[in-house]
């Protein structure tokens, strides 16, 4: 019952908005959020279209648990064809926007076409309109957010918006909501920009109804207690607590994946964020929770006022979103930088201009390697030396890319196109054009398989092989946990809850919450089958878009260059052994295509 039962279809070409009933048959098969959004995408567009054309469709999707009393229920996802990859893009976010969209009475928002002039969608209670965004086109995320709230005298609006990066087609532009949470990956912000849609601003006036309120309260309270016992220190240390583990393990990508351990890691890790320096400054101010979350892993930080990045820029003398593991990796080890204030500032800029920090950092890492090889020079880079370790290069290029100035326009292409442009595609640390997160897949074999087979390209959040990868550093036995966790994560991503609950909750815990929430019988088996269906539908989208099994691969560096240090010293990724077993377990042909029997079994035939 926690589906609202309504979809809002926005046609920007015609300039109209039309509510329609939610297809409940699809909701029962695909749950919500990632799964249901994928189904609507599949049914509403041709996967072959250019990602930046008006024919691409952009979907904001909530899950049946979004906005409920369940912990971590602030999630929503954005789905589209991604400009970075040409594959399906599914990028989810926390904050408060997702719950607010649900309270507006909609499960999904489907955006079609392209507006002639810049607009934003305003939903205030039951009033829905497309408003001119000409006064905020060219403005940052933070400026647009403030302007819209003032324009409508409504500080309670929850806003998802793009910055200039999205307007100008940076291939990894993000959609940022609530100032510093983001649907960050795969360039969903660039698609929004191509449609001349600057923002979606929502203030809802409806609640959500669950199937069995008494049981729902009881179950969700039990789940919160479980989470509290197993939050894994996320509130205190945040996700960046992983950095020193990655360092010791020897899987911390360093200097564009040439190395796996970084001597300056302890200057940008969780302990560094908590350390008070000689002036009394501490990077971390506090933690912060998304809507309804009892984990609260978010970081709120600030930068030393005498740091070179903001010394004369008072507009940045405020607290804002701080480093999480992926941002710390992308602005630290992978480009060889150990300046925590520069990393924090670059993080601000990603939120302010609306960009994915992982893709930006790994693209900059490739540019630095090109620079140190002499392939590009300061003549190409606006006079800025792009040496590994340069905090100035990080912050200057973050801003140039966000504003699409000078060499920032090249960095905005992403690593794959940039490396092709300079004749060195082998330096691009990507799968399907999307940059790796902070895990080297020579030390973490299952991670490599998950990266290679990721439907949205390289991604660390669509499978969970961490435990088996730590237990055994060979490629043996990794296909099954990779496949199963991909299916399971697809189900979790479709529920409206956060994957950071997975340390405490398994399939029975998720099923219990959904079963108290939604009509129909929700069992762990049904959830897993739904996840497998979702994964296969994403695969069908990619195959229809023109991707093949040749795209399920890793860069040569990870397949041929032995890892130089750490606990996996000497290993390369064993993808060649793992991939055939994976295809077989999936019920796919040797060409990576679901067999007719698999499609029939999953109701996709």
């Amino acid at each position, binding site marked *: 019952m926690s589906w609202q039962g309504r979809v809002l279809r926005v046609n920007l070409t015609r300039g109209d908005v039309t509510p329609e009933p939610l297809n409940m048959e699809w909701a029962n098969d695909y749950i919500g959020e990632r799964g249901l959004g994928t189904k609507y995408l599949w049914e509403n567009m041709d996967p072959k279209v250019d990602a930046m054309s008006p024919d691409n469709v952009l979907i904001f999707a909530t899950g049946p648990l979004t906005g409920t009393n369940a912990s971590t229920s602030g999630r929503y996802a954005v789905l589209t064809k991604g400009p970075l990859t040409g594959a399906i893009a599914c990028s989810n976010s926390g904050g408060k926007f997702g719950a607010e969209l649900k309270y507006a009475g909609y499960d999904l928002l489907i955006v079609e076409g392209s507006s002639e002039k810049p607009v934003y969608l305003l939903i205030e209670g039951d009033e829905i309109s497309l408003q001119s965004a000409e006064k905020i086109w060219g403005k940052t995320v933070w400026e647009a957010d403030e302007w819209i709230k003032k324009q409508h005298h409504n500080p309670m609006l929850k806003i998802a918006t793009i910055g200039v990066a999205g307007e100008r087609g940076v291939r990894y532009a993000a959609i940022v909501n609530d100032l510093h949470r983001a649907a960050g990956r795969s360039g969903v912000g660039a698609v929004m920009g191509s449609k001349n849609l600057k923002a979606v601003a929502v203030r809802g006036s409806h609640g959500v109804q669950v199937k069995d309120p008494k049981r729902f309260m009881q179950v969700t309270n039990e789940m919160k207690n479980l989470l509290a016992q197993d939050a894994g220190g996320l509130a205190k*240390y945040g996700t960046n607590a*992983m950095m020193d583990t990655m360092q*010791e*393990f020897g899987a911390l990508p360093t200097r564009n994946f040439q190395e796996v351990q970084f001597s300056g890691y302890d200057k940008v890790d969780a302990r560094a964020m908590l350390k008070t320096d000689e002036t009394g400054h501490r990077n971390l101010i506090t933690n912060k929770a998304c809507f309804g979350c009892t984990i609260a892993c978010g970081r709120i930080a600030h930068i030393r006022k005498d740091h070179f990045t903001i010394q004369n820029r008072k507009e940045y003398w405020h607290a804002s979103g701080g480093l999480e593991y992926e941002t710390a990796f992308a602005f630290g080890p992978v480009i060889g930088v150990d300046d925590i204030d520069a990393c924090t500032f670059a993080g601000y800029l990603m939120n302010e201009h609306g960009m994915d920090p992982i893709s930006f950092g790994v693209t900059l890492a490739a540019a630095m390697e090109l620079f140190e090889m002499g392939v590009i020079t300061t003549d190409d880079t606006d006079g800025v030396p792009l040496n590994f370790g340069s905090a100035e290069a990080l912050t200057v290029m973050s801003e140039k890319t966000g504003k699409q100035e000078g060499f920032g326009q090249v960095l905005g292409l992403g690593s794959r196109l940039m490396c092709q442009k300079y004749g060195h595609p082998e330096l691009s640390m990507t799968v399907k054009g999307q940059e790796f997160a902070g895990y080297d897949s020579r030390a973490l074999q299952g991670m490599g398989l998950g990266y290679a087979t990721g439907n949205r390209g390289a991604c660390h959040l669509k499978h969970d092989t*961490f435990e088996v990868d730590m*237990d055994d*550093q060979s490629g043996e036995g990794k296909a099954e946990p990779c496949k199963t966790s991909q299916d399971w994560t697809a189900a979790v991503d479709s529920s409206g809850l956060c994957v950071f609950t997975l340390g405490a909750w398994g399939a029975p815990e998720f099923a219990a919450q959904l079963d108290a929430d939604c009509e129909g019988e929700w069992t762990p088996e049904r959830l897993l089958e739904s996840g497998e269906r979702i994964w296969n539908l994403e695969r069908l989208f990619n195959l229809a878009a023109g991707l093949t099994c040749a795209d399920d691969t890793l860069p040569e560096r990870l397949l041929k260059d032995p890892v130089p240090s750490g606990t996996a010293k000497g290993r390369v990724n064993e993808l060649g052994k793992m991939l055939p077993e994976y295809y077989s377990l999936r019920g796919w042909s040797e060409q990576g295509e679901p067999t007719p029997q698999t499609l029939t079994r999953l109701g996709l035939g």
Partner: protein
Amino acid sequence: MRVTGQLIDYFSGTHVNLDEGASVEQALVVLEIPAASVGLVSVNGDAVPREKRARHGLVAGDQMVVMAPLTGG
């Protein structure tokens, strides 16, 4: 001795005194770190798989690292 990630609340020093011939598993008991909370242990840079913790003996001067589980980020 070193512990990583969220496990740092268990131990923030550099050295631990153990009985002669103590195993990795016994060292974890001394540190009061629940086995289920450990991602991986390395000794002198080499991984010690979970099933070998009880058999892997330590000698004076060994560098043992107790790594927290990875969770994605």
